[in-house]
């Protein structure tokens, strides 16, 4: 029974204070870095925390950015970047195409 109630609550989630997609997009990087630093991102950005529980699109973007910042964030200061994935793609030329 409680499983169904959780499901129904999830289906109809519409919480006051929801920041919406546009506001969340602007600060998603700050939100994620706070999380990775072990700080309370939801307290700093309560409207975004609410939104991320309700919006499947923004939640997917958040989850992706959290993983990327966790996995690749520390590579940002390396001047001698080793890039096995780019190499496996056969991209010897690192320059972007314009």
């Amino acid at each position, binding site marked *: 029974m409680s499983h169904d109630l959780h499901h129904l609550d999830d289906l109809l989630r519409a919480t006051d204070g929801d920041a919406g997609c546009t506001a969340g997009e602007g600060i998603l990087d*700050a939100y994620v870095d706070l999380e990775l630093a072990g700080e309370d991102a939801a307290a700093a950005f309560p409207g975004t925390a609410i939104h991320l529980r309700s919006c499947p699109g923004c939640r997917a973007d958040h989850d992706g950015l959290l993983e*990327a*910042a966790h996995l*690749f964030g520390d590579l940002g200061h390396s001047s001698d970047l080793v890039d096995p994935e780019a190499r496996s*793609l056969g*991209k010897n030329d690192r320059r972007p195409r314009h």
Partner: protein
Amino acid sequence: MINERPAATTERHDEDSRQWVEQLRAGHPRHDEAVARLHALLLRVAVHELSRRRSQLGSVAGPEFEDLAQQAADDALLSIVRRLDDFRGLSRFTTWAYKFAVFEVSSKVARHAWRRQPPSAEELTSERLPDGLSPRPGDRLEQREQLKTLSDAIGSLTARQREVFVAIALNDVPIDVLALQLGSNRNAIYKNLFDARRKLRGSLARAGHPVLEEDAIAG
């Protein structure tokens, strides 16, 4: 909806971030090198994010997958260089930059999914409740009445609210795919979804079947 203000967050202009911004500016002696380094990082992020969303890509693999990653990294890099002045130091520079790559992948995956398999007419109109909410013989009368009220209330939504709620909440159509199908954008579709949910929750409450919020249930 409210405007989220980052007032509670301290600025984090770390040395690495400062160097990234400096070196990416046109005319800096290390500009080309910085651009190449950033593009390599963005490509890794794009490949990782595409892999994470692979279930939406169907049979895309090999050169097509690589091309999508390259396009996402290229487009992200262009946006970043154009918007360097928007970086306020609220995060590490790399996290800010990776956000562009994630958004590009998100957008490209949605467009690909929409082209490959646009939402069917049934996905936009079928009001069948998910299995977890379908009335069962053993359900209490109260719960069956609650679900019947919900079904009736869906019919009272505006046409757009019903279409959005039915597609996203009942039939799991990705929000960005639906936005493309309806010629709209994620924010506008989310607003429709939010209003629909609020109206349905209100209808249930007025009918004497309020939906307890998760936190209240847990408590």
